[in-house]
């Protein structure tokens, strides 16, 4: 990695940290434009996990021997790293490790939701939520008869807050994505949190897309829960994070039952452990937590401000280049300027189907996603069944965007 840590990212140097970028497919170098689905991992993350397995692996929280103590320490340090990364005031009591962001959101729905929501209560979501922040609430709605409401998405790809106040009526919880995985829209969480809190509602933020790409601080956002995933922020698969305000987590009943989450078990009852262990049943993702620490350290070293600046500039380049080189043939969904917008570019090219676009792009080594991006309600709102989505990470450069555009043009020729 570039030793320079101010000014713009030295992308060329940084790319060397990501082994996958030196791979070729179909005789072309990989152009990885799918970071919104999952990011690549730098060598340091893999090295940290290998080192852990090779020198320290042991189950945590239950052993007095040296490696078990060390494994426990590493696991708990990961909690601090994850908390620190999002500005958590007290990570030891606020950070719960899950298997992914989805489980983190399910945990809130299951544990907080079942305790605090009753028939007729309202959960306010947005039309741009990922299924991970819709389906758990739909399941609860089915079970409990709660009402789901949706903040609409305007034609500019931003949340339409005009009716926020009216929509908040009767709402106990607002579930909102910090950044859309389809439109790139960065939502005004702080404003929404203020409005929600005024009405006595809590806010659960889906940070799966924002945490890897923006500086995030739970205190300044003022949200009550934040969910995110390791694998989208250069960490390993198999680990997610739920941050929650300590007093809320403290009052919540357990979610999954098993070892590690109890104080006592008798044949007819059990006493749950304190937070965060109460929510971490069974052997946790230990090596993954070690990898997550390394990922956080990597991101911190590059610097989230610089990552945001780089990705923002590249998004601007992409928006311009697509407009000037492909003109009206290519439509980009979501905000048209980089203000309040991350590097997620959902595309439609003429009437070539997204699946076919992605297939042609694959021949150029370009990795983009085609489909509904787990946001079917938003797809319906946009009036499409699928988009091709190119999404940017710190390791992308203008050459990647150029190849993307080259591939799109070829798809145009092929489908003429």
């Amino acid at each position, binding site marked *: 990695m570039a030793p320079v840590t101010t000014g713009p990212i030295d992308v060329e140097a940084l790319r060397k940290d990501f082994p996958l970028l030196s791979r070729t497919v179909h005789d072309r170098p990989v152009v990885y434009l799918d970071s919104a689905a999952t990011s690549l991992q730098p060598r340091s993350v893999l090295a940290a996990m290998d080192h852990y397995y090779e020198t320290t692996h042991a189950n945590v929280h239950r052993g007095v021997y040296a490696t078990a103590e060390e494994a426990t320490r590493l696991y708990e340090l990961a909690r601090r790293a994850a908390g620190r990364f999002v500005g958590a005031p007290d990570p030891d009591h606020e950070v719960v490790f899950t298997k992914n962001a989805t489980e983190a959101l399910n945990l809130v729905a299951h544990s907080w939701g079942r305790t605090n929501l009753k028939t007729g209560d309202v959960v306010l979501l947005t039309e741009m939520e990922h299924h991970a922040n819709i389906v758990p609430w739909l399941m609860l709605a089915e079970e409990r008869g709660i009402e789901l409401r949706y903040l609409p998405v305007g034609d500019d790809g931003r949340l339409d807050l005009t009716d926020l106040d009216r929509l908040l009526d009767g709402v106990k919880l607002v579930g909102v994505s910090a950044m859309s995985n389809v439109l790139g829209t960065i939502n005004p969480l702080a404003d929404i949190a203020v409005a929600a809190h005024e009405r006595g509602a809590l806010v659960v933020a889906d940070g799966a897309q924002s945490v890897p790409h923006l500086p995030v601080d739970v205190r300044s956002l003022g949200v009550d829960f934040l969910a995110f995933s390791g694998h989208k922020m250069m960490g390993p698969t198999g680990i997610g994070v739920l941050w929650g305000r300590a007093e809320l987590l403290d009052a919540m009943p357990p979610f999954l039952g098993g070892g590690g989450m109890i104080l006592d078990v008798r044949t007819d009852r059990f006493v749950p452990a304190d937070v965060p262990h109460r929510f971490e049943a069974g052997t946790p993702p230990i090596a993954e937590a070690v990898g997550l620490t390394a990922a956080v350290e990597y991101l911190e070293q590059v610097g989230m401000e610089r990552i945001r600046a780089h990705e923002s500039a590249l998004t601007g380049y992409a928006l311009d280049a697509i407009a000037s080189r492909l003109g009206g043939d290519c439509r980009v969904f979501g905000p048209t300027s980089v203000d309040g917008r991350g590097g997620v570019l959902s595309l439609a090219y003429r009437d070539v189907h997204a699946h076919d676009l992605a297939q042609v792009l694959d021949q150029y080594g370009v990795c983009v996603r085609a489909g509904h991006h787990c946001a079917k309600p938003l797809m319906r709102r946009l009036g499409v069944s699928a988009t091709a989505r190119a999404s940017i990470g710190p390791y992308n450069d203008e050459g990647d965007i150029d190849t993307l555009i080259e591939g799109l043009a070829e798809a145009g020729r*092929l489908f003429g």
Partner: protein
Amino acid sequence: MSDLEDLYREIILDHYRSPRNRGELPSPPAHRVEGFNPLCGDEVVVTMVVEDDRLADIKIGGTGCSISQSSASLMSGAVKGKTLPEVRELVRTFKSMMSIHEASLEGEVPDELLNPAELGELAALQGVVKFPVRIKCATLSWNALVQGLEELAQATP
């Protein structure tokens, strides 16, 4: 021939641009089945009329990628007017061409295992097997057809 050209053969692009038997038959009397691929959002609506053990008419609706739509169009042409045993045989042949990959997650893709002649124009879809993700696109309408035939068989005891 590159893999891509093998996938997007001229016949496929032609059926995609000008789908045959496009539309919906009024149902009833026609039987209507929807097929849906959750991964890419492709949808296909197959309406069919069976008379005297024969697929008397079939129409295709829905939207989706070139593979799902051309496969549906090709299918409609191939099965229309055929007797049900003939249709079933064709489905079997087509599916075995497509399931080459499914059976071989482990790796060994046999180069050639069917006589393309048996399949006529449908053989154009053979390039799909090299793109496992797209097999679901190609088989979408076929699965809907099979479902429809089964439903009809159950309805008439």
